[in-house]
């Protein structure tokens, strides 16, 4: 470049014999040459690496996997028949419908609210920061947060602890009845005695499978409660751990030193219907009072023995796409908020003030003034998000665990898999690429129109 310029400089004092019109023409021509030199590197790169590949892909999409046989539109019809690509099209549709709406809405709400606090700048910085983080790092961050094991994934840890606050976790997940001593196991995991007990009876229900160290604090020996008198209208009993510490004792008998199982739910069942329920005391005893005469069974419902709540399988086939969209929200909410916030600060203050003086409340101002005035900004944010959501690749590729990849797949990942990741069908891969391009053409038109209008 510099050498050309040096030569130009040497030639610039033109000989005086040349007529001025010709000189002007030569100057203009030289100006054009210089201009072309300025744009040439950009045009070369764009032409060779962007424009040509687009044309090539369109052509390639009309050939078969090996690229030797012309198949016309077959790859495009195949796309809508093949279950894997169809799944990708469906998931991309979900992404495009859900993510931009959520992001624009959340961005709008936060942009309005954040103006009301003094630490707005810090908040904006915090939410915008994920934009600087790679999708890969964000993917690892959320793979960790969504881990299924509540001892590893923070989200499931939170869900489990909230769940356990509202619903007691079962106390005896490992307990089972001592076999052959009156309790039989139902299909649902509960245990019951035979029917035929009548008021006035006492039952001893032996359980095993609980380690003495796992007994709830405050459990007391059951032997005292095992005796006792039973009134005529009540059914009495004790649920105990049929294990004598230090050895000895008889199976199926309440030996001294054997502990009651407190907090066990017990039901009295008559003719298949539960007529009374209670919970065992600290020595494992329970009683049902005021029973009518009849034949009863005592049942320990399955909720006593349910395995502990393990939270939700976030990255399982059903939830994986919503969860990846959640990670996407983490990255892009700040963008929406800051862009909408910039639009907000450009709103005419007088309109808002006038409405306030007229007695409009904040919600009316938001609905009737802020949102309509912001419409152009909201459109820009929304369109930007739609374009970016269509191309989402890394997050899906990283967050979805191997076996769930096919449930989470979107157009960009499917295009990758089909072309390079084992599928090795570059005809179909090119067709998917072209589909991706076709989907962004409305945005292309939107951009070109907006640009021409601005000129």
């Amino acid at each position, binding site marked *: 470049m510099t050498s050309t310029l040096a030569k130009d400089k040497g030639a610039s004092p033109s000989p005086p014999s040349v007529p001025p019109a010709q000189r002007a023409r030569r100057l203009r021509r030289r100006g054009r040459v210089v201009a072309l030199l*300025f744009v040439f590197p*950009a045009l070369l790169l764009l032409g060779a690496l962007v424009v040509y590949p687009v044309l090539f892909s369109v052509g390639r999409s009309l050939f078969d996997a090996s690229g030797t046989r012309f198949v016309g539109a077959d790859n495009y019809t195949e796309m809508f028949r093949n279950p894997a690509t169809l799944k990708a099209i469906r998931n991309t549709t979900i992404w495009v419908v859900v993510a931009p709406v959520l992001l624009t809405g959340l961005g709008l709400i936060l942009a309005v609210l954040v103006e009301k*606090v003094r630490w707005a700048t810090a908040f904006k910085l*915090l939410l915008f920061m994920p934009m600087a983080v*790679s999708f890969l790092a964000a993917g690892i961050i959320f793979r*960790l947060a969504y881990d299924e094991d*509540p001892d590893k994934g923070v989200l499931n840890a939170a869900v489990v602890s909230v769940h356990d606050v509202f619903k007691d976790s079962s106390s005896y997940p490992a307990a089972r009845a001592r076999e052959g001593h009156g309790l039989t196991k139902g299909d649902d995991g509960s245990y019951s005695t035979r029917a035929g007990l009548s008021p006035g009876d006492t039952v001893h229900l032996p359980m095993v499978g609980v380690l003495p160290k796992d007994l709830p604090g405050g459990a007391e020996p059951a032997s005292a409660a095992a005796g006792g008198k039973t009134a005529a209208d009540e059914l009495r009993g004790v649920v105990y751990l049929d294990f004598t510490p230090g050895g000895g004792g008889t199976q199926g008998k309440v030996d001294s030193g054997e502990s009651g199982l407190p907090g066990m739910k017990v039901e009295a069942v008559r003719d298949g219907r539960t007529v009374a329920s209670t919970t065992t005391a600290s020595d494992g005893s329970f009683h049902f009072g005021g029973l009518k005469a009849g034949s009863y069974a005592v049942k320990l419902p399955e909720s006593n023995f349910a395995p502990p709540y393990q939270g939700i399988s976030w990255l399982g086939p059903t939830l994986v796409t919503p969860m990846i969209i959640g990670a996407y929200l983490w990255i892009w909410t700040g963008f929406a908020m800051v862009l909408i916030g910039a639009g907000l600060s450009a709103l005419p203050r007088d309109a808002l003030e006038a409405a306030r003086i007229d007695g409009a409340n904040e919600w009316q101002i938001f609905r009737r003034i802020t949102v309509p005035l912001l419409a152009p900004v909201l459109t820009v944010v929304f369109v930007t998000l739609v374009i970016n959501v269509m191309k989402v690749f890394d997050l899906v590729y990283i967050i979805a665990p191997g076996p769930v990849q096919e449930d989470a797949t979107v157009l960009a990942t499917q295009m990758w898999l089909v072309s390079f990741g084992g599928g090795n069908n570059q005809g179909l891969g090119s067709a998917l690429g072209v589909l991706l*391009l076709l989907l962004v053409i409305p945005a292309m038109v939107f951009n070109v129109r907006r640009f021409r209008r601005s000129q």
Partner: protein
Amino acid sequence: MNAIRRGLGHWLVQAFLVVIGLIWLTPLAGLFVSSLRSAEDTAKGGWWTAFANPAQLSFDNYSALLKNAGMTQAFWNTVLISVPTTALVVIVAALAGYAFAWLDFPGRDPLFLLVVALLVVPVQIGLLPVAKMFGQLGLFGTIPGVVLFHVAYGLPFAVFLLRNYFAEMPKEMLEAARMDGGDEWRIFTRLVLPVGRPAIASLAIFQFLWVWNDMLVALLFADTSSQPLTVELQSQIRQFGSNIDVLAPGAFLSLVVPVVVFFAFQRHFVQGVMAGSVK
């Protein structure tokens, strides 16, 4: 009464924003704390249990990472890819942006509309054809190949941004410079570049972060000796969980540079992103 209600509303808004802020911080904190724990500790309990047990935290994972030849190589590759890409995009786009804004050449306006149209072209469509082309040119699997691809796909936005910025310059300024006998090259270096510095800074930061964070392009165009950090980490994701002592510090290391750049130049970055919306 009204004041009380407003006070309560204000308090609610604050509480809501604090909750949102915590939700945003927690996953990041999780990664950082995990990066300081051994794989055995992570297998035994969540990262939050480390607060009760601060003895678990150490920088051992990081020092192990720095001794890992593959990782350090990948880190340097990331630098060797993102710095030249940023420089090239800025230079090529500034030249073209100036020409589109102020010089006259045949086909100028339609060509610029083409650039605007190319803003949204997805990189995916370029992968296969360019891979074939680079294969023939011997660029496939090399750092220059990765750089060239990034430059090409960064150009539409870069040219668009700089042309629009340069076009705002007062016409008189340029005419005066031309009257003084400055040729276009000198006007470009002495006048246009200094005046365009804010836009160029935004572009450079935006472009740098974009390339630093890329995985897709390098996944295809780089081989094991030229792959950046993102691809190196991605190749280990299959053993997620067992090698969390490599993944977590690696991911954290890969995000430290962009986050520092972000906080150092946040105004420029935000402006760059905002100018790039509808891209």
